[in-house]
């Protein structure tokens, strides 16, 4: 329910409030547009995120199975020993991207070392199953990085959308109605004063006329 603000019913206040109302309306429109566009972007990202998620989880599940098989065919110390000194090192570069003034990260990764050479161990002590597992994992690195990027963007965008939505609602349902009623009540008050003034003048005029007439008669 809109309430009238506590302000003095003067012309000064009226023009101030009118200006505020105009600003509020403009802000409301802009924020609404911002929200709509963000939701559009968000939905695209969410769709992408969902697809990537399902894919990555599927692939990781497979990789885990490979590793379980590898662990079964070798002793766990041997597995650990084989993996502990990786040849590959991933260097991640973080860039930022601006989606509707939300700063989201953008990840670029580079692998040091040759592309084909992912195996950090000699083939004497390890089994072929481990090769399969490591190979499968190396293939999904790009997916994992992309998933991280998308998921973070979705998180950031979601909280920004929520904030914007609150602002839009506050303007639409509280601020603007309040300003409107207040402006209206001030206008009515000023009009009432004006009318009171006119009646008073008319009354005085009548009284003065009556007085002059009375003087003329006598």
């Amino acid at each position, binding site marked *: 329910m809109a309430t009238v603000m506590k302000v003095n019913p003067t012309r000064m206040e009226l023009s101030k409030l009118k200006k505020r109302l105009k600003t509020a309306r403009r802000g409301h429109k802009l924020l609404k547009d911002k929200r709509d566009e963000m939701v559009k972007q968000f939905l695209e990202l969410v769709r992408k995120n*969902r697809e990537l998620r399902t894919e990555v989880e599927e692939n990781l599940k497979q990789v885990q199975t490979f590793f379980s098989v590898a*662990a079964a065919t070798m002793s766990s110390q041997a597995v650990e020993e084989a993996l502990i000194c990786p040849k590959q090192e991933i260097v991640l570069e973080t860039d930022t991207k601006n989606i509707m003034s939300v700063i989201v990260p953008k990840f670029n990764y580079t692998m040091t070392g040759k592309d084909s050479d992912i195996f950090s161990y000699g083939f004497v002590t390890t089994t072929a199953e481990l090769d399969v*597992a490591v190979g499968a*994992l190396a293939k999904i690195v790009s997916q994992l990085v992309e998933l991280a990027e998308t998921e973070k963007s979705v998180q950031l965008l*979601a909280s920004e959308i929520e904030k914007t939505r609150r602002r839009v609602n506050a303007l639409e349902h509280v601020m603007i109605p309040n300003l409107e009623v207040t402006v209206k009540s001030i206008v009515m008050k000023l009009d009432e004063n004006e009318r009171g003034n006119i009646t008073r003048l008319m009354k005085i005029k009548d009284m003065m006329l009556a007085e002059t007439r009375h003087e003329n008669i006598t």
Partner: protein
Amino acid sequence: MNKIACVGDKDSVLGFMAIGFEVHTADTLPEAEKTVKSLAESAEYPVIFVTEEYYNGMQHLISSYSEKTVPAIISIPGKNGSQGTGLAAVKALTEKAIGADIALNS
């Protein structure tokens, strides 16, 4: 130089060593929580993967980083397979932003 970190129990994350992730093993949840916290604070790891079991246990810690651009703390299924944490999180975020989880599978 920024790197990708990975936190989880030994069996789940050991493989990531081979492809150059920096692997931190943790046997208990408090240990994992401490590790993730120090990794996130150090600002050298823009991406931190955490296995679902631990991810679910440290929601509080993770949400304190959700407003920041980096680090991105992302859940991955552990050795027990996916429990649907990732997709549930996406669903929750959609609900938060739009107010309803509308069908996106189309």
